[in-house]
């Protein structure tokens, strides 16, 4: 069976500019969400995970020209740069760059901010990042709603099986733009306070921005312990484009197929990193799907109340946290969880806990009825 090893990573988020900083803040129970003053006086304030422009520019100035790149490009470049500086021997001629984003430079749609109008194209966003580092192959861009980041990891595994490359860089990045705020507002899906995934009092999502980058390899690293992606599946609900299936059909099937591909029994799963957005419908759907799959006893969390929903970055960002949780044998309390508010039982993690982790499941779902499940395995030497 083909495995994809998760070698190195970086997270650029309101909680910090490295994976270590992010893990530390989560361990301390610190959230990256804050109340943002509305740009128009008549608008309501929103609660979101925003990275200060000044902080990005301070870091970016060390490696590139500030005026040449958009905010999202700077975040993405900082994430990849952080990974590459620790892996200088990477052969760019045979290392694809796979990029996940839902909206790319969507903030340029209103005003171009002096950038070329082509910059709004997702492939141009990817090209800018690729050119910065000098990747030799044209970047691959995936835009598949809120499962994009995970799907990019999956694409690396699947393409490696056909194209026979050893390493790939996978990136997920999205902004909190007026565009998405306005859109989720029109759905009345935004919570004015930090979201409460799986809780009774949950009333919607927070948006967040982040860039997450990962170096992956088909070759097992010579390390004491390593984590790899060993099973994955994505199944559409074929039910509704903006609401999840009431039976959790697509997610249930995704989990079943991914566990089957991993070649393990579902009883082996030690931990689930859920999508857990904090909307009524998503969290209920996930609870139903986890129960149908017989996973209701497995410790589960959502970190959305620490980051907000980072859209195309989220499933990759959460896979990175998942990997480090596995290496450290620790799980974090489900952020902002109060009283269980879904119709099926779940084993929500209520405090940071040390537990032995060998197999973990990551799930994600999104608009268009898409779902994704990924099984990760830890191997010890």
């Amino acid at each position, binding site marked *: 069976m083909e495995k994809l090893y998760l070698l190195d990573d970086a997270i650029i988020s309101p909680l910090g500019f490295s994976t270590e900083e992010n893990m530390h803040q989560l361990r301390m129970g610190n959230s990256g969400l804050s109340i943002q003053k509305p740009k128009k006086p008549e608008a309501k304030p929103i609660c979101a995970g925003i990275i200060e422009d000044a902080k990005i520019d301070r870091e970016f100035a060390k490696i590139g020209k500030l005026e040449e790149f958009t905010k999202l490009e700077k975040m993405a470049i900082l994430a990849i740069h952080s990974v590459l500086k620790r892996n200088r021997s990477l052969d760019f001629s045979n290392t694809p760059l796979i990029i996940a984003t*839902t*909206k*790319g430079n*969507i903030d340029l*749609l*209103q005003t171009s901010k002096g950038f070329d109008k*082509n910059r*709004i*194209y*997702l*492939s*141009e966003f*990817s*090209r800018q990042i690729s050119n910065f580092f000098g990747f030799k192959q*044209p970047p*691959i*861009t*995936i*835009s*598949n*709603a809120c499962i994009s980041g995970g*799907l990019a990891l999956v*694409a690396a595994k*699947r*393409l490696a*099986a*056909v*194209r026979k490359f050893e390493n790939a860089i996978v990136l997920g990045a999205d902004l909190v733009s*007026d*565009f998405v705020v*306005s*859109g*989720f*507002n*029109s*759905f009345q899906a935004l919570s004015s306070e930090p979201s409460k995934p799986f809780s009774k009092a949950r009333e919607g999502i927070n948006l967040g921005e982040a860039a997450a980058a990962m170096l992956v390899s088909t070759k097992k690293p010579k390390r004491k312990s390593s984590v790899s992606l060993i099973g994955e*599946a*994505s*199944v*559409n*609900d*074929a*039910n*509704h*484009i*903006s609401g999840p299936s009431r039976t959790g*059909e*697509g997610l249930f*099937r995704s989990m079943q*197929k991914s566990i089957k*591909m991993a070649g393990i029994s579902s009883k082996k799963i030690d931990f689930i990193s859920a999508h857990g957005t904090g909307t009524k419908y998503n969290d209920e759907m996930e609870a139903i799907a986890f129960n149908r799959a017989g996973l209701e006893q497995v410790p589960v969390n959502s970190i959305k109340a620490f980051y907000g929903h980072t859209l195309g970055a989220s499933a990759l960002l959460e896979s990175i946290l998942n990997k480090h949780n596995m290496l450290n044998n620790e799980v974090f309390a489900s952020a902002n969880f109060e009283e269980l508010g879904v119709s099926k039982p779940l084993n929500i993690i209520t405090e940071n806990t040390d537990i032995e982790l060998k197999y973990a499941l990551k799930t994600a779902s*999104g*608009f*268009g*009825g*898409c779902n994704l499940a990924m099984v990760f395995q830890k191997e010890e030497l």
Partner: protein
Amino acid sequence: MQKELYIKHWVKIKAGKIFDVEETFLATEEKDLNTFLKLGYQRLQISYPKFHKMDGLSKLGILASEIISRKHSFSKETALIFSNAASCLETDEEFQNSMQNFPSPATFVYTLPNIVLGELSIRHGLQSENSFFVSPQFDAALLVDYSTNLINTKMAPQVLCGWIDLQSGEYDVFLCLISSEGKTQFSEEMLRKIYYAENDRPTHRT
């Protein structure tokens, strides 16, 4: 064992024409996108009221997939691997314009390129693998490699893959059904040959 894969059927929608390898379903001088899409809907005698609520990209997907599904019914696990250059930029612009007054949730939901995959999944009852890729030009190698992997690893028995682009009212659709049965070999060269056959002027930015 690697199975030989074939292009079982293909369809194209471009510059007023809707056609497959066997016939032309519509050929019109109509320049207005919505009128053209409606003409296509009528000519193909589709009865699916939801069609009228969709954005242009989804409507194009429905028209193209309808032609293929009538000749070769899709199994429930037929995967959808689509790509384009402009993502859903037309709908993004529409939503951006609506933001000044009343941002419309009905428009916002279409501001993701993979919504067409969701619409096709609903229309044809496909509970299957979906992926939407964005590239500056038609990327035959990506479609071949990704689809081949899905079939070889038994993640999907067949794949509906291709290109579905819409910008400034110009559309360029090329979808093909890939399976282990057929006569036309599924290769990068063949995909390019069929795609570029009528495409001396692709719609993507030049």
